[in-house]
Every structure is written in C-alpha cells, then in structure tokens.
C-alpha cells in the first residue's frame, strides 16, 4: 500500500520536475568568450562580463563564460558554445575573424562582438564599438592641465584601432589644452599622424607595464595612460612606489579606482568604456526579440564612454580645470568640438 502511494508521489514529483525543467530550458542564455587577458583582468574582459552579470540579475537570463588562453582557442571556444547559448558575445577585436567565420557558418545563431564593426555588416552579428576618443580627449585635456613636468606619456597593448583610439583622443585632448592655454605640453608614446608609438605587444605582462611606465617616467612624464588591459596594473604598481606626486596613472576601460582597490590612490581618473552597459543592452535586445545585426556605438552622449570621477584626487584637480572639462564635454556632445583632429 504505502509503496504504491510513495510510487505515485514519486511519479508526480517527476512530472513536476519535467515541467520545471521545461520552463528552465525556455530561459534565455548569454555566453561570453573572453580574449586572452582572462575574465579577471580588472579591465576589459571583466567589464564586459559585468554586463552579462547585470543581465543575469536584472533580466533573469543565465550567463556563463569561456576564457581563451591562446589565439588558437577563439574558434574552438565559440564552436563549443554553439547551440548551447541564445547569444554568444565575443570580447575583443582579435576575435573578429573567428566570430565572422562562426556567424557565417551558423546564420541562426545570434552573435555580438565587443570592439569590432563589420563592413559590410553581418545579419546575425551586432558589433559594439565605442567612441572612446571622446572620453580620452577629456582625459588628455585634464592631464595636460594637471602635469607638473609638461610631459605626458602613453603606451598601448597592440597597435589596433580599439587601443589607439584611446591614445588618439588623449593626444588630441592635450594638444587642445595647448591651443587653448598657450602651453607646450608634450605627449610621449604615440603619434596619431604616423600611427606609431609604444606598444608592449601583449595584453598580459605586468612586468612590461612597469617597464614601459618607468621609461616614460625617466623621460619626464608624470602622468601615464597605459592602454593595455591588465598590463596597466604594472604601471600602477610603479606609481604606487614612486608616489603620486611623481607619477599618476590614467586608467582605461573600467573605473580602476573601483576595480583595483589596492592601488586606487594612483589613478587620476579613468577613461571608462562602458562595455557592461552595451553588453547588457545587447542581451536585453536579444531577449526581447529585437536583435538586429549591425553596429552599436557607445558615445559620451549615450554614456557608452565617460570619464570616471576623480575620487581621492578630487581636491587636487583645480575647480577651474574641472569646469573647462565639463564645458568641453558639452562641446563634444553638441558637436562644436571635434575630437578627431
């Protein structure tokens, strides 16, 4: 008797479980393939992953990620997520080829890629790009107003557009400061006209970040902008040792004051590229069924790029300079100031 009863209960439970399983399967899943810096790089990959995490908590989707350890992983990683995820988000310019290949072979799979815009566009890929030079222009202006030595420095990871666009904006912002104030601040490490500058040629060596910052410091720079993901943490370590009077760092991608709490005091500000905002936006679009291939551009106007607060350095930045930066921000948004030289 009891046996049959419990047997029935088990059957009922099994039916309920099947139902629960079915509704779970209807969930929307977003998957991310990182670049070689790793998911915990305090910067690029981590910011994009935060977008997925935000979508998980706010939109009720499921999210997961795959880390690439080498370039040969890109395609394999994307392939292993095919059919497992509703949308696959690849993070980084270097994944451009692999994403294109996978998207063309699987036209029914939704893709989105951070930092790459296809020309012509692919119907099932939404590219996320950023007018980073707008925010970097503000940072360049600010840094030119803050420098004691009259020399700023910058270096990049690899000479690719999503990296050099920071350096372009930073350089031109500093030049704009010179033009406005009659100063002669120089920027070492990048020349937007020749397209040549300092590059570590990797996105993972903290030692390089330290060595490059040291070189720039030795050449007189007292504010350095490293545009190389976690490599910049090495530069921050140097600034920490030298003291912020000798060397300040401008962060990139995320507000490094928040993501690098151990060295937070060395950051003058950060040029934030709100990949979390655009990634979350793309997931929301896809979940709502409004996904369309094309390009999504983050700007100062829509908050896709911005300048982080000064935090501890709030009192170091003169009020007048702050006002000028705000005026330039408005000028960039309304189009009266051109950031592309």
């Amino acid at each position, binding site marked *: 008797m009891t046996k049959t009863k419990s047997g029935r209960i088990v059957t009922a439970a099994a039916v309920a479980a099947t139902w629960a399983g079915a509704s779970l399967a209807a969930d929307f899943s977003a998957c991310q393939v990182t670049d070689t810096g790793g998911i915990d790089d305090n910067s690029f990959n981590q910011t994009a992953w935060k977008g997925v995490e935000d979508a998980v908590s706010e939109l009720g989707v499921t999210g997961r990620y795959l*880390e690439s*350890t080498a*370039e040969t992983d890109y395609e394999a990683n994307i392939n292993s997520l095919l059919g497992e995820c509703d949308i696959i988000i690849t993070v980084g310019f270097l994944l451009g080829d692999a994403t294109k290949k996978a998207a063309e072979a699987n036209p029914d799979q939704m893709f989105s890629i951070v930092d790459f815009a296809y020309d012509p566009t692919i119907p099932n890929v939404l590219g996320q790009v950023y007018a980073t030079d707008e925010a970097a222009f503000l940072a360049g202006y600010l840094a030119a107003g803050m420098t004691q030595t009259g020399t700023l420095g910058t270096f990049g990871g690899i*000479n690719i557009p999503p990296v050099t666009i920071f350096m372009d904006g930073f350089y031109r912002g500093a030049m704009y400061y010179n033009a406005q104030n009659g100063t002669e601040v120089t920027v070492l490490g990048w020349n937007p006209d020749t397209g040549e500058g300092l590059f570590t*040629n990797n996105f993972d060596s903290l030692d390089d970040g330290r060595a490059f910052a040291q070189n720039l410091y030795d050449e007189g720079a007292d504010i350095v902008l490293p545009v190389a993901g976690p490599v910049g943490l090495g530069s921050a370590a140097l600034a920490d040792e030298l003291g912020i009077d000798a060397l300040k760092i401008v962060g990139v991608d995320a507000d490094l004051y928040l993501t690098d709490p151990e060295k937070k005091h060395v950051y003058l500000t950060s040029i934030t590229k709100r990949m979390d905002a655009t990634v979350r936006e793309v997931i929301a679009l896809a979940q709502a069924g409004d996904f369309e291939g094309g390009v999504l551009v983050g700007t100062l106007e829509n908050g896709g790029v911005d300048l982080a607060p000064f935090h501890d350095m709030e009192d170091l930045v003169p009020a007048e300079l702050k006002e000028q930066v705000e005026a330039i921000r408005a000028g960039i948004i309304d189009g009266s100031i051109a950031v592309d030289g």
Partner: protein
Amino acid sequence: MSERETEAGLAESLLRRAAPDRSEFEDLVIVPIFAVVVALILGALTMLATNVDLPTIGKSYLALVQGSVGSLNALSETLTAAAPLTLAGLGIALGFRAGLFNIGAEGQLLVGGMAAVITGFSFPGLPMAIHLPLALLAGAVAGGLYAGIAGWLRAATGAHEVILTIMLNLIAFRLVDYMLRLPWIQREGRADPISRSVLTSAELPRIFTWLDPNLRLHLGIVLTLAAVLLVHWVLFRTKLGFEFRASGAGPDAARYAGMRAGLLIVIVMACAGALAGLAGANQVLGVLGRATPGFSSGIGFDAIAVALLGRSHPWGVLAAGLLFGALEAGGRQMQVSAGVSIDLIGIIQALIIAFIAAPLLVRAIFPWGFRRAAKTPKE
C-alpha cells in the same frame, strides 16, 4: 644437448619478441595509466581545496570525457588539437633518441609556420595539388633549416643545444613580430601584426564539413599519421635511424663504430625542426588561416611533455599527443558545462607529466599494479 639448448634459446627469444618484456609493458602502459589516475585524483583535491563542491567536480570530469570523446565534434576537436602536438612531439622524440635535448620546437614551429603562411598567400592561381604541398614543404624546410643552425653550432663548436635552442626561440619570437609588420606580409588595412590570409588553394581542407560545417578536423591529421609512420620507419628500419639511436645510447661507441657524430647531430636537428615546422604549417594552413604573434601558443613547449610522455617512441608520442589533445578539448567543455577554470586543466596536465616522469613514485603508490622487480640491476 647443445642443439636442444639453442632450440630452447631460440624459442625463448621468439617468445620474447612476440610478448615484449613485462617491465617494458609496465613502463609504456601501466605507468602512464596510473599517472593519469593519480593526476585526476589530485586534480579533484585541488578543486576541493579551491571550494569547488563534489557534484561540480563529478560534472567537470564527466565534461572532460564528453568534451574529448563524447561526440563527433569532441573527437574532431581532440584530433585537431592533437595533430600539431604530435608532429612537434615526434621531432623532439627524434632528438631524445639521438641524445639531444631540443627545447627549440616552439621557435622552429614559428619559423616553419611563417614560411608556410608566406607561401600560402603568395602564388595565387596555383592549383591546390601544387600549392598545398608547396606550403607544407616550405614550413618543413624552414623549420629544418632553423633547427639546423642549432645542430651545426652544436656539432661545430660544442655549444650546448639546450642553450642554443632556447636562444633561437627568443629570436624566432621577435623575428615573427618583425616579419608580421613587413608591408608585403602584413594584411592590408591593419596596423597590428597579422599576416595576409592563406589562399584557399593552400589551406589544409577540412574533412567533415559535409557532416557539420563546424567540425574543424582537417587534413593535417592524415599528415600527422603519415609522419608517425615515417618516423617509425626511419627510426627502426633504416641505417640512419640506427645511427640516431646508437649515438643516443652510446655516443662514444657510436663514434668508435665510425659514425660521424657531428653530421648526425645536424641531421637529427634538421629532421626535428622539419617536423616542428610542419606542426606550425599545420596550424596556419589548417586552423588559423593566417599568422599572428601568438599562433604557436606554446605547442612547441607542450610537445616536449608529449615526447617525454610518449617515451620518445612514435606510437607513444601519438598516444600522448591524443591525450593532450583530449585534455585540451575536454578542458574547454569543463569550462562550458561545469564552469571550472581552464587553469585547472593546466594543473592536471602538469601533474600527469610529473607522475610519468617519476615512475618509481607511481610504482610506490600502486605497488599491486606491478610485478615485483625480480631482476634488480644491482645483482
């Protein structure tokens, strides 16, 4: 009486040939199997120590199996990853056989890959029957010549090949960086170091795209198997192979027997480099379709472990290459299904190698797996 004795001796030697020495069997089969088992157990303990719960550990090892052999795609990924490791591993095994410790596979792979890519994007209009073999040949020749430098320096000056090959690796890294920025190699419209794309006529064609367009397995696996057979034949069936092995087992004896040690070193290194160069060609022509600074992705270093694990025997190297390929493909699946870090696979790989390199340790842990050492060399 004496006739019967020789008969018995003959029978015994025939028997021995039919059933290889038990201790050899233990070394080649049982030690690796137990090493893998211990490594997986220690891997599980590592996961436990990093706060991964037991169900997830079970799930991740299940994913390891599924991702490596559990589906057509998994098998394809395993073989795709195994091919370059096996090719480069064969080269290193050749060196070991001849008593040379070649750390330079990574550099030889880079140089070979670059040569293959350059051949692959030049010569538009060539039919595939000519273009593809030409690109492969370019990879092998370039890798062979590059390794030949180390071999020649070793033979001519006595400089140690470990140092030579490590230094040549460093040079190869920078050489590739430099070459990828040369205007005739760099892809148009790109400022970062990336080569032009390999033409279709020089690509190693994918074998199973008619089943599923995402299956990446390409003709390189056939090339790899052919290389295994060729190396086996050379090593055990030719005079040259005998000389390799003789100079590895007893360099002085080999010299007294009239073998030209210097020349042999150069030839061994060149063959090893050619195999590593083929591994590079396999990657750029079969997997990537282009070259970037990171295209070698450490295969040349992993291949050292593959050669060691395979006990420098061609079949062993193939088996070890397959194991490493399986770990790579399965490791990916561990990330996908269980969310376990890819770094863990690296730890498990390292543990496997460590245990295989220490057979006495494995024998001590699993005493019942082995026959007691009856003939100790001390006697």
